[in-house]
């Protein structure tokens, strides 16, 4: 018998707690596969956010830390500066990274911290129960924008990949999606590239991944994938925003 698929060594044998249809599980697996394929598991140190992925330390089979809300890039900085030969990654959601942690992420990028940020953008606060995120789309209904997000009141959704690509310290900034198999594979490629660029020490790397939240969007898993494609991709275009080739 031939093994054609198995759990990556960089994932622990624990059941994910994520809701049915949530794409965090896919993204966890992609990160783990990349760590495996680059033989980085024993060199990797990961930092979990506050949010749905707060328990990621139960899933990634490498050294892990749990951060306060939004502070993962600062913790990653402390680690990487003292252990420059290790591979340091943060796994953050949109509330964590683009709202309460906006300062930390922008300055980590400006300093060119040699870390990799996995930024999961699902346009809503998942864990706290579907409140408005900085990435919530205009018109999108959430529990704290019950009449839909209005530009006159809440302002505009944050385009983090575009924003951080402006910083000289950013070496690789890419936005991908996991709404269908082709894009899942592109996401994996981007994560791998980000980790490889971290290894070369070129600077800050981030993959923003458009993701679904069927529970808080009030949609079925398939409808949620469709909603992502129809509503998120037009505002959050996919692609590489910054690729630094050399020093």
């Amino acid at each position, binding site marked *: 018998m031939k093994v054609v698929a198995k759990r990556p060594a960089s994932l622990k044998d624990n059941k994910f707690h994520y809701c049915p249809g949530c794409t965090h599980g896919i993204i966890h697996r992609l990160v783990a596969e990349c760590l495996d394929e680059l033989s980085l*598991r024993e060199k990797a140190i990961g930092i979990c956010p506050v949010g749905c992925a707060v328990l990621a330390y139960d899933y990634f089979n490498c*050294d892990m830390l749990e951060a306060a809300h939004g*502070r993962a890039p*600062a*913790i990653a900085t*402390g680690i990487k500066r003292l252990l420059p030969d290790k591979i340091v990654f943060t796994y953050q959601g949109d509330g964590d990274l683009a709202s309460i942690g906006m300062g930390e992420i922008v300055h980590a990028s400006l300093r060119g911290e040699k870390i990799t940020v996995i930024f999961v953008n699902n346009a809503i606060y998942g864990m706290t129960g579907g409140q408005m995120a900085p990435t919530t789309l205009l018109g999108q209904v959430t529990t704290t924008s019950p009449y839909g997000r209005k530009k006159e009141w809440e302002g505009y959704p944050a385009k983090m990949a575009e924003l951080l690509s402006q910083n000289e310290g950013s070496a690789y900034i890419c936005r991908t999606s996991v709404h269908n198999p082709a894009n899942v594979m592109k996401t994996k490629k981007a994560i791998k590239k980000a980790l490889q660029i971290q290894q070369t020490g070129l600077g800050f790397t981030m993959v923003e991944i458009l993701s679904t939240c069927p529970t808080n969007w009030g949609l079925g898993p398939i409808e949620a994938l469709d909603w992502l494609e129809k509503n998120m991709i037009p505002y959050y275009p996919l692609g590489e925003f910054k690729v630094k080739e050399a020093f």
Partner: protein
Amino acid sequence: MQKVLMKGNEALAEGALIAGCKAFFGYPITPSSEIAEYMARKFPKMNGVFLQAESELAAINMVYGGAATGHRVMTASSGPGISLKQEGISFIAEAELPCLIVNISRGGPGLGGIQPAQSDYFQATRGGGHGDYRLIVLAPSGVQEMMDFAIEAFALADQYRTPVMIMAEGTLGQMMEPIVVREPVTKFYDKPWATNGCQGREPNIINTLHLSPEYLEERNRHLQHKYDEISRREKKAESYLTEDADLVVVAFGLMARIVKRAVMEARKNGVKVGMIRPITLWPFPDDAIIKAAQTAKRFLSVEINMGQMIEDIRLAVGGRIPVDFYGRIGVIPNPEEILREILMLAEREGLR
């Protein structure tokens, strides 16, 4: 032994280097900035890390990450900056990450002023952030102690896996005194819990989230058990002329040096007065207070605030003896006004 003239903030920074500190993460604020500036000059030449963070929040979280690697790391700030760091300090306490946090203190509340003060006593000794935790808090009273306590702080932090705070009034940071520079520390602690890559072992997790109520309580009991042990073993105070004292003045830090002079003068005036200087603000040296309370008739707490440590003295004496208070903020009480206060108390209470 040869002495060198050093500024308090620089002596503290040099003490941290002597203790093997490998990184400083901080944000500028008066009157603590010389510590950061000293590290900014030194670390690049010795393969250490000095990094000016974008905020106090980021700085304390860099300390969290740095301490998690197993290296000795520190930060320094002052009142308003220490308030901003409280989120991270709470996480660090629960994650049991050893590190040094320095508060070169100034007066609050709010932006307050930049004059020296002791008004962060409650914040320092009660944990400061959310949750049930404590910091070991050391209060130096001279430039030599700024260096010595920095060295001791790292040892205590590693021994108990706990953040340690040095709280020193701004004056101590700014003033110069001749000191003996200590030998480099050679004793270090194994840190098998560090998150530094899991090669050859199971992965380590540093985490403060405990969703199971039973486990959360277990974690809290574990911390309290540790704090009990620290309380039993690490209380420290200096007692001066307390054996026959009717009146015992309690003061810490720089204030204690000023009080000492007033005590000497009061003795010349026939008042049997002594002094207790808490060196550890937490654990509070209530043993020294309780001992003095066996013979003393009255206590006087002198602080550069509106009355904070007095609560710990009252807890220690348990209502058996009256505790008076004298304090100022914005200005440091001088020996003459403390002497006046002592003589007035002695007169009023018939203590001579």
